[in-house]
């Protein structure tokens, strides 16, 4: 059986700088993968290539077929993306932004139907954004806007969810809320999740598989206890830390040594 999403020997460069250097990765259906690495290690570029908006040398296969063989419309029903930043130049309400996820689900000239409204409502409820529905998106705080973007991605009802720093602007409660939701959707609906993350401890708690990038290469790929060790963190981040595995989950937890 072919992997849900698979890349092989990816090469990507901005000018002379290699951002991704021979990256190969197979993502199985229903996996939940955290992509880690310092700034500029290639996380965002990898996610953009996985979602098909950046073309790179090497192969990207979605369910065994080259990603270029899909139309944008087909892709948007399989892969949903929560971008790192979103630019909104015109006044749209949060509900309008979430409903945009449904553009590829209904006829071009039709207004949104009951199924579309229902998908939007459910995803807004799940992300605690119902109360923001009629607010202008450009007037929301960073965290509120981020949750609206997550709601939009969920409303696409795709099989694969790619997220770039989904927790960046969120407060502690909403960070946990988002990761809990991901884990629930992953278990209940077999949603495949790939997220670029900075918080190593949250990554270790919620993601059974971690991929650690260093200068465009995969430094380590495996379970949290294999990836997050004092050695790897020293090698990749250049920082001395202490790693413990507290009860009850026994997932690695990183303590900074000042």
């Amino acid at each position, binding site marked *: 059986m072919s992997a849900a999403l698979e890349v092989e020997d990816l090469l990507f460069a901005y000018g002379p700088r290699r951002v991704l250097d021979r990256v190969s990765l197979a993502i199985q259906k229903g996996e939940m993968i955290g992509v880690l690495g310092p700034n500029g290690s290639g996380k965002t570029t990898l996610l953009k290539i996985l979602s098909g908006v950046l073309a790179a040398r090497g192969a990207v296969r979605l369910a065994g077929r080259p990603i270029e063989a899909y139309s*944008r419309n087909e892709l948007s029903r399989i892969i949903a993306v929560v971008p790192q930043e979103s630019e909104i130049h*015109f006044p749209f309400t949060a509900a309008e932004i979430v409903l*945009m996820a449904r553009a*590829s689900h209904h006829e*071009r000239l039709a207004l949104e139907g009951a199924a579309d409204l229902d998908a939007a409502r459910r995803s807004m409820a799940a992300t605690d954004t119902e109360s923001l529905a009629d607010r*202008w998106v450009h007037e929301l705080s960073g965290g509120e806007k981020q949750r609206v973007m997550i709601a939009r991605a969920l409303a696409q009802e795709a099989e694969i969810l790619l997220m770039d720093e989904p927790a960046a602007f969120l407060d502690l409660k909403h960070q946990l809320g988002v990761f809990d939701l991901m884990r629930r959707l992953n278990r209940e609906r077999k949603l495949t999740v790939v997220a670029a993350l900075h918080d190593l401890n949250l990554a270790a708690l919620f993601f059974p598989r971690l991929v650690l990038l260093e200068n465009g290469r995969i430094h380590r790929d495996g379970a949290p206890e294999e990836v997050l060790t004092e050695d790897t963190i020293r090698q990749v981040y250049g920082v001395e830390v202490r790693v413990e595995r507290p009860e009850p989950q026994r997932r690695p937890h990183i303590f900074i040594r000042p």
Partner: protein
Amino acid sequence: MIAVNGALLALLAASLLACALIGPVAIDLKRALADFFSPDAEILFRARLPRVLLGAAIGGGMAACGVVLQAMLRNPLACPQMLGVSGGASLGGILGMIFFPHWLLPLAGGLLGEVSWVPLAAFLGALLSMGLVYRLALFHGRLHPYHLLLTGVIFNSFVAALIMFLNSIVDFYQAQGLLFWLMGNLSTRAYPTVAFIAAYIAAGFLWLWSHGLRFNLITLGEEAALQLGVEVASVERQAFVATSLMIGAMVSVSGMIGFVGLMVPHVMRLLVGSDHRLLLPASFLAGAIFLCWADTLARVLLAPAELPVGIVTAFFGGPFFIYLLYREGRRLPV
């Protein structure tokens, strides 16, 4: 939201009638309807109505193009004058007026009379400049908004210099005529011409409207639009060609009437929001209403002389727009 469009439609119908009745010569609607050969009917149906209808079509078309260009270039300051085509059309028209001022074009083999060939020269200029700007702004199969904006603006300033050069070498009377045309003005044209132009603009508008949902997504930026299922490069190319063809034809007929395409979309966004499925028809109707009244003012303010309507749109549009930005600016994202 649909109610807003209904109200605008009713307002447009009322405006068409009112504007056709207002003019330097007072006319009586009852008499005009009762006796088709009365002077009242002659003025209403032959002189005023075709001009009012033409104004409505062009105002609507300009506003709709403004909406789409602002979405496509993700720039709330974009307007129809920004695409190189408006400069190209002006230059074509000016060349036609200078070198072949007396050429007339027979319509349907002369059966429908003859028309000035200036609009045709202008439209040719528009087509040529559209091809040129398209070539210059296309990189790797994409019309990048940034390139398109720069190319259009620079092309237009270059053409403006050429036009000023031509304007300074022709004689005084000709220069007056050129200036009047450049400021944008409407004039009475035969019904077949008006019908043709209106149908052309309507076809362009319907095409743009049918892509309304995609323009919503395109305002979110290229990557977001791609990820939500829009073939961005292809929609952008088609939208550029469609708006260019519309703007080229409108400038050819009426010169560059400014402000409608910049201002109306903003006012309508404040009123109905940014969903292009509603914003496009609302802007079309509001643009039509606005230009109807602006042209009526242009006809009566200095009667029996006429002002170029472009002066009226800028004169009333400018301060109103500044006031609106000042009052509503907080609600805008930029």
